[in-house]
Each structure stands twice: as C-alpha cells, then as structure tokens.
C-alpha cells in the first residue's frame, strides 16, 4: 500500500469540465436523496456528496478550490434537509480543505492511499458534524465508534470504486 510523499512540482493537477463540475455533485446529491427511498439504511451509512468532495479536492490539489467545493456541496446538502443550513457546509469545507492540502503532499492516485484518505476524512467529517450539530445547533447526537468505523469502511470501499470512475473525467492542466 504505497503512500508516497511528492513535491509540489511532481504532482499532477487536474481540472474538470463545467458539466462535470456541476453535474457530478448534483448527481451525488440526487442519489443521496433518492436511494434511501428504496434502501432506507443507505443514508445512515453512505455519504456520496462527501466522496465527491474528497475526489474533487484531491484531484485539483488547490486548498481554496477544495474548501469552496466542499462548502458548496455541503450547503446544498443542508438545503435538502430541514436542519439549519451550514452544518454539512462547515464539515465539508474542512474536509475539502484537508483533502486538497493532503493531495498536494501525497500521491493519492493509488487505491490504498485513496482508501485510507477516505476512511480518515469520513471520521473527520463525522467529528466536525457531530460537534457543530451538538454544540452550535443543540441537536441531540449519539456517537458510536462501531457505527462510525463501519460507515467509514463502507464509504471507503465505495469511494475507491467511485474515484476510478470519476478519473475518466479528469483533464490535465
């Protein structure tokens, strides 16, 4: 499972076409809202907008771009629910910034690295979400390490597959 440290000159920075930039997050949001109607546990264990945030942030390797992507996707996810807008926004902003900052320093092109990065950022996302929801919004929250790890593993597996599909849309700068 090689995770190589690379200099800023060595890493490749990718960009995406506008339809992909808009369409993929929208598709992720759509699936996140629609699939639970048929598979109710889907929303409990999977967070497709998070995976898309991590992918775009890692591929672009630009912290500002990463945090803005995370912010927009997170806020859009908030708007689909009825809780105050900003809980997912804050969590995904942090993840977007972190993933893009990590992408600058690490080679995250291989499956092992992607798996670990997704696992770690899922937990970071959950922790930020939990803190904001409980301490800022005063929502009742229950934290379970077992559930958290299971969900992180499930997202990591799905993420690795999803990233390889989304790699097809990458354009070299």
């Amino acid at each position, binding site marked *: 499972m090689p995770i190589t440290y690379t200099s800023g000159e060595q890493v490749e920075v990718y960009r995406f076409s506008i339809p992909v930039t808009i369409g993929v997050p929208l598709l992720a949001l759509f699936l996140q809202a629609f699939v639970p109607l048929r598979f109710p546990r889907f929303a409990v264990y999977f967070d497709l907008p998070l995976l898309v945030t991590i992918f775009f942030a890692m591929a672009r390797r630009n*912290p500002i771009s990463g945090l803005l992507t995370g912010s927009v996707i997170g806020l859009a996810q908030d*708007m689909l629910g009825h809780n105050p807008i900003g809980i997912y926004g804050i969590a995904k902003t942090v993840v977007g910034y972190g993933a893009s900052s990590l992408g600058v320093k690490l080679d995250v092109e291989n499956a092992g690295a992607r798996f670990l990065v997704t696992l770690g950022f899922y937990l970071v996302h959950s922790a930020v979400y939990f803190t904001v929801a409980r301490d800022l919004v005063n929502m009742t929250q229950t934290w379970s390490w077992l559930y958290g790890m299971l969900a992180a593993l499930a997202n990591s597996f799905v993420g690795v597959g999803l990233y390889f599909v989304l790699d097809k849309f990458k354009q070299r700068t």
Partner: protein
Amino acid sequence: MESVLGRYRNLIILVGVLFLQVLGLATQVKRGGNNDLESTRLIRIWVVGAITPFERGLIWIENGTGNLWHNYFYLRGVRAENRQLKEQIEQMRIEQVRLSEDAAQAHRLQALLTFKEQFISRTVAAQVIGSSGSDLSRIVYIDKGENAGIKKDMAVITADGIVGKVLVVYSSVAQVLVINDQTSGVGAILEKSRLQGYLKGKADGEIGMVGVMSDEQVAPGERVLTSGGDQIFPKGLPVGTVTKVANGKDLFLNISVKPAADLNKLEEVLVLVEKQERQTSAEDTGHVRAADILAQRLPSVPDKPATDPKAAGTAPAGSAQQPAASGGPKPAVTGAPPVVKKSASAAGSVATEPKPDSVKPAPAGTSVKPAKPVPAVPQSVPQSAPQSPPPVSPPPGDQTNPH
C-alpha cells in the same frame, strides 16, 4: 504584512468561509423554530428545484415500467387473488355492520359529552419522490405542492397510520417532516389505558412516547392513537404499538413505539387538506323507544292479519309495523324479529307508550320492567345494510334483563 497574508492565504480563506457559515448558522439558530425554514426558503428552493424534477422523472419511469409489467405481463395468480379478495370483501361487509354499530354508540356517547369531532373531509394522494439523504433530517418530499392545495402543517398519513406533517410547501413539491424526526411531536393517547402523552423522534430514528408518569401501567403491545391535541392530526388515527416500557428520568416512563406506517418505505401518502370540525348532537343519533329494543330482543309472535281497519289505523309509530300515518296496509309479519325503523326521520321523535298488543310477550322467566323512554339509542343499522340488523347493545338506562 503582505508576505504573512500570502503565506497564510489558504488558511485565512478557510477561517473566513467557516466564520461566515457559523455566523449564518447562529442567525438561524437564534431565530429558531419554523421561522428559520421560512427565512431560508429562497435558498432552499434552488436545490429542491434542481433535484426534485429528476426524482419525479425517475419515479414516473419506475411506476410506468412497474405498471406495464404488472398490468400486462405478470398476471399469474390474479384469478385466485380476485376470488380471495371477493371473500375478503364479504367478510369486511359483515365487519362493517358491526363497526357501524359501535360507531353509532360512540357517536351517541360523544353527543352526551357535547364532544367536538374532527372529520377528514378531503385528502390528496401524493407520491413520495425523495428524502433529505441524511439520517439526522428525517423528511421526505412529496410530488404535490401549493398547486394541489397543500399547505403548511397539514397532516400526512397512510392507510396504516400517520406519517408526519407538511413542513415547507413549494409550488409543485412539499417537504414532510416524518414523525421519527427529533424535532417532530405528535399528541398521542394509549388505546386501552387512555393515558395521554406526546410522541417524539429520537436520534436513532426510533419513536418514543413522552409524558406518561412512571406510576402508570403501560404494557407492550398496546396501541397508540393520535389524541388530536396537536391540532394537526385528527383524533383516533393509528400511530403505532408500544414495544418497550422502561422507567426514565424525572418520574416519566420511557415508552418505545413502533410506528404503524412503515416510515422507511413510504411510497404513496395522503395529505389531509380539509378537516371538518363539528359538534356532535344527540339528534344525529336518533331516538328509539325501549319498547322497540325489547321487541327486537324478545322472541316474536306473528301478528294477526289486520282485519280491523281501525286497529290498523291506530298502530303505534315506531312499532314493528309501518306507521299508521302512512295509511298503507299493515305488512305481514312472518315470525322474524321485527325490524326497528331507524331512519333519519325518526330522529327527535318523542317516544310514546306502545299499545299492549304491539309489545311481544316475554318468555317465562324474563323480567321486563315497564318500558321507559330511552334518551338516545344509536341507529343500529346503517342504511346500506337494512336487511340484517345486528344485535343491539344495551344502551344506558335500558332496564331490560332478557336472561
């Protein structure tokens, strides 16, 4: 200074973006309640407008494919199912007669209590097309909105039980807060013990009934109904069943409730767009004399054929025969228990003492006290099934003791 800003540019932007979001969050939290949803309505409508057309389209395709398959290709076992359903309808008709009887009795008792009832007078069927996609916001989207007459705070139900209430309404879609959400609350009552409380969603998606004192006796398996106290759901709709009872904090019981409707697999729902509130009146229930009740219970003796036109003309109203006022011929009684006429025209009629020959003789050993006018006896048989009167339950004040 510039070098510092340049060096920490990314971090400064991160902090700035986070600060703006925290500020927005704080504003919404401070405003609180549903005002927050109204204030952010314009922002939310963008995402809802972008996502829901796709969901609606997918549901349409899914339904179309499903209908094509089930209605034209996959018809195996339909004949047997049809036969089974017909049998079921017959059974339900019999059940309906019995339930009508109970309903009429309840109606009469409500009238005595000058009860205000809420009736569901109009519903709109809607298809569930989406969710929030988060387990911390248990809402669903339905494909009907303002255009279909949906308004905020309308109750949403299925045939099995209640689902939730309309939270936000857009032009062609509406957001429904499901009863297992943490911010949801429903006035509830336990069916047998009549203990009242309210239902609240938990973080894990379960539902709990709150507000029942720990010294009360609540057994698992008891049904929970809406109490009507929330002014959203009419009284008496099924909510769920008690699954677990435990002592909680602050002298209250922790009651877990399994919802009657399958909240995880919602497809079609009904929105109660119109509720009618009316005061129950005793006149609705009609009046039947005690003698009529007696006549129905006791073994009947065939009447003599009406030979004397005078006798026929003076038959008491409300007896087994047609009222004399109609002037019609006296119908032949064939030994079957006389059918008590309980039409709406009888409502409010003053009970009169029957003629001795109109009251059937009581069998030996039966003590029958003199008939008293009964205040209000339910209309025992609905108009749809007049030929088979079900047994009439004894009304309060009925002094008859047939055995």
